[in-house]
């Protein structure tokens, strides 16, 4: 069915909407009732009739479908196709040749998606859910821009912006019968700054002008309420069984307390997340291009909530981060990492069904993870396929343990795999993984950190982070590991690079006198050519920290050998550190040496100046 057959025009709902929001108001501002808590409470009562004003767990805005479907946009040798895959039976239900642009939305018996079509702004396509057969398609002319659509049952809600000259652009919300494509009602929105809608439980919500969410009756188009987000842009709306949500950097559960969206409202949630995570709770509905399958589907936060007394909490206290090949579970309050899962291939789409994390990879692997443990509970494959994007319709679905099920991932192994991964796209994530690794207890972690430091494939920032973690953990049970690392001197013959002496010295120093046995292995690096001035400075400091008075000989040698070296003339830090160490660890003869060094005219000027002061300051004590 073509777009021409769709009945157009403003329905009665639009008129009644204006009336409902007040005749006085419409003469001044269309947002006069924005933030009205009573209006919003009325909507919530419609969504949750049994629990409108009582404490309860989540009711539904759109009830569980009892389905276990994935709609996959495929590419590759067989051409562009859309297919339906049954996750419960692991089989392909149907496949239709088509190019999919905007994401698939799933209704009761219909799916809708975008495709390029032949018109400038593409077209919207409806298909039979069970067969994929084309039901109708609606092209968009150059004057009409699709912002998004949502299905509630088989009611389709579409937001567009129309720009017919010479009129100003207008925002339109239209309701269609998704099976036939016939228009049920249409309202002109109060602004042309529109966003993609969400629908469920008989209502439809549309973000407007970044700070409003307008709520309409899905059946009649009657305006029911207006939310005013006062502290945070409302860039998305999302209908879940738990309720209707809006937000951007956080999540507001629609309710009386969030009618004027404030972060202080009980209905507001924002998870604590590590720095590497882009806290994207949904895509930006104001940007039509984000309605297409894209990298946004591969880098997002997966979240579900439970609601108690109108107050939402992240389910099980967890949020999940899908970052291309990796999935993480974080404690939403503390940002503590619970588990990490690494897929060999980029996951192009994922969803939290409430009982499982489902994903599909670009290479055609479908998988399910246990939200509590990260264990892979199920796996299936579409051999030879290239998956561009996917939409899941599997609310509440968790595949029974079956092929490909595996034990929960070992956190240490998962973090190690992330750190060692040659993929260069995730520097921030690798830093996070190193930090998390460093927080784990055990000698094997210390060994792993040393290994990271020694790898020539580790990025400089990652080396720095691994070093910080190694120093901070003060692992007295791993002194032998530090010793062994220090003993692995650089050797061209054996293709062995110099050990990370600077960091190792700091780690040894942080242990204090407990690490005194390491002194000989530390001091030997003062006499090696590859030891950098920075490393020499750390060695000198570490020798002081561990109280290695037996190492004064090495300090003397270092100081005399380089005191007149031009390199140290420019930056005498290492010489100063060695001199300080001699002052602290040495005796009278060492002070005499220092006095000679301070007076000898070829000594680096910075060192001479420092020694002049230091010897004076410590003269009394020396007496």
């Amino acid at each position, binding site marked *: 069915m073509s777009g021409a057959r769709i009945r157009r025009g403003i329905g009665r709902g639009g008129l009644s909407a204006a009336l409902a929001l007040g005749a006085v108001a419409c003469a001044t501002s269309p947002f006069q009732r924005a933030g009205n808590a009573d209006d919003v409470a009325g909507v919530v009562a419609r969504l949750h009739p049994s629990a409108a004003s009582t404490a309860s767990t989540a009711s539904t805005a759109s009830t569980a479908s009892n389905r276990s479907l994935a709609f996959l946009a495929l590419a590759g040798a067989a051409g562009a196709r859309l297919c339906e895959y049954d996750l419960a039976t692991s089989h392909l239900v149907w496949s239709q040749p088509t190019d999919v642009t905007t994401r698939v939305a799933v209704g009761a018996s219909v799916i809708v998606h975008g495709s390029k079509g032949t018109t400038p702004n593409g077209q919207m396509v409806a298909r039979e859910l069970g067969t994929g057969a084309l039901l109708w398609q609606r092209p968009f002319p150059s004057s009409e821009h699709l912002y998004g659509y949502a299905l509630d049952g088989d009611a389709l809600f579409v937001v567009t912006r129309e720009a017919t000259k010479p009129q100003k652009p207008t925002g339109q919300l239209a309701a269609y019968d998704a099976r036939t494509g016939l228009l049920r009602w249409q309202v002109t929105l109060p602004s042309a700054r529109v966003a993609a809608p969400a629908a469920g439980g008989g209502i439809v919500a549309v973000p407007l002008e970044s700070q409003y969410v307008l709520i309409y009756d899905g059946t009649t188009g009657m305006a029911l309420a207006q939310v005013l987000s006062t502290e945070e842009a409302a860039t998305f709306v999302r209908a879940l069984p738990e309720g209707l949500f809006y937000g951007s950097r956080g999540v507001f559960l629609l309710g009386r307390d969030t009618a004027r969206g404030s972060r202080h409202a009980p209905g507001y949630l924002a998870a604590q997340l590590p720095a590497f995570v882009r806290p994207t709770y949904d895509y930006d509905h104001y940007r039509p291009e984000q309605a297409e399958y894209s990298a946004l589907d591969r880098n997002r936060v997966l979240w579900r909530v439970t609601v108690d007394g109108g107050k939402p909490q992240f389910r099980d206290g967890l949020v999940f981060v899908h970052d291309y090949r990796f999935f993480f579970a974080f404690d939403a309050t503390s940002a503590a990492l619970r588990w990490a899962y690494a897929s060999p291939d980029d996951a192009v789409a994922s969803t939290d069904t409430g009982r499982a994390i489902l994903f599909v990879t670009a290479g055609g692997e479908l998988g399910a993870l246990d939200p509590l443990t990260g264990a892979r509970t199920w796996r299936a494959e579409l051999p030879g396929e290239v998956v561009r994007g996917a939409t899941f319709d599997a609310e509440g679905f968790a595949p029974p343990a079956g092929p490909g099920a595996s034990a929960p991932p070992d956190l240490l192994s998962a973090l190690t795999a992330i750190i060692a991964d040659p993929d260069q796209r995730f520097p921030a994530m690798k830093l996070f993984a190193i930090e998390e690794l460093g927080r784990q207890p055990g000698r094997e972690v210390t060994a792993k950190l040393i290994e990271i430091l020694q790898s020539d494939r580790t990025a400089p920032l990652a080396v720095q982070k691994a070093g910080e973690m190694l120093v901070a953990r003060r692992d007295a049970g791993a002194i032998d590991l530090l010793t062994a690392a220090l003993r692995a001197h650089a050797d061209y013959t054996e293709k*062995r690079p110099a050990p990370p002496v600077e960091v190792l010295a700091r780690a040894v120093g942080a242990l204090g006198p407990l690490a005194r046995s390491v002194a000989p292995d530390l001091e030997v690096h003062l006499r090696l*050519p590859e030891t950098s001035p920075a490393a020499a400075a750390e060695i000198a400091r570490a020798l002081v920290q561990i109280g290695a008075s037996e190492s004064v000989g090495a300090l003397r040698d270092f100081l005399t050998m380089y005191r007149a070296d031009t390199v140290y003339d420019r930056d005498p830090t290492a010489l100063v550190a060695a001199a300080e160490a001699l002052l602290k660890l040495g005796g*009278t003869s060492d002070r005499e040496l220092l006095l000679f*060094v*301070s007076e000898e005219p070829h000594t680096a000027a910075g060192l001479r100046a420092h020694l002049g*002061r230091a010897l004076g*300051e410590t003269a009394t004590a020396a007496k």
Partner: protein
Amino acid sequence: MVAGGAAWATVSHAQETAAPAPAASSKQDKKAKAAKAAKAAKAAKGAPGAPAPAASLPADKLEGLRLALVGADDAAAIEAAGTLGASGSTAAAEPLVEILADGATAARLQAALDALAKLGEAHALRADQTTIDALTLYAGHRAPDVRRRALKVLGTINDPRVIPALSDRLGDAASDVRAAAAASLAERHEAKAAPRMFALLARGDAGVAAPLALLATPDMIPRVAELTGTIDDGIVADALGEYVKRADVPDKLRIDVLRTIGRLSGAVATTALVEYVASIPAKEDRPSKKEAQKLIDARGASE
């Protein structure tokens, strides 16, 4: 431990506590000392073109040179080091080693090391612990040039205590330092170093080719030949060319090795054959010489 030379050891504790910063009078003293040192160095140098110095140095001359070495005048210090090195006197080493122990500018260090090398070559360098310690320390200096010079001196000391330092530097990052270490080890027939030298050769390290040839056992030669194609032919030719020159190699084996060289490409292989022929006295007629000449002729014909 090396540090602890005479220069600083004479500083008194009273001086230290009384003057945390160098006093004006102290500076004046140094200027006077430096002038005296420069004068002494000039006197010690003697006339240009003078015959090689005797193997002993008069005490006053030695003291003058010592003062010049530590004086403010860099040129005089370097000149003094040269004079000490050329003296051939066993007493000349001490002030030079003191320079190492006290530390100095790069130019003075290099001059001191070069002088010590000369003394070593003249067998005037004693294998005392202080000297070995100082040279071992400088074999680990950050500047490759200093390390290379220190190794050269160590190589002249006929004492097993220098071997660890030489062996360590076979793994040096600088090729000229590795080459110096390898040469020193080869000269003292340190056979234990051969496997590491072979590893270096396998990495294409040209500097170890000749030293390895001096240490290689017959069973190592086929392995050297097998490196053909994996490293530069010239390096293989260099190693094999040096090997065939050894007097202890059976002539039959020489022929095999020469034929291997003959199959290698490039001027280095031709040179190796030519040098081999040249290394044999004209009157001596051995099969390997004929074979080498034949291979040279064949290469000439094919070119």
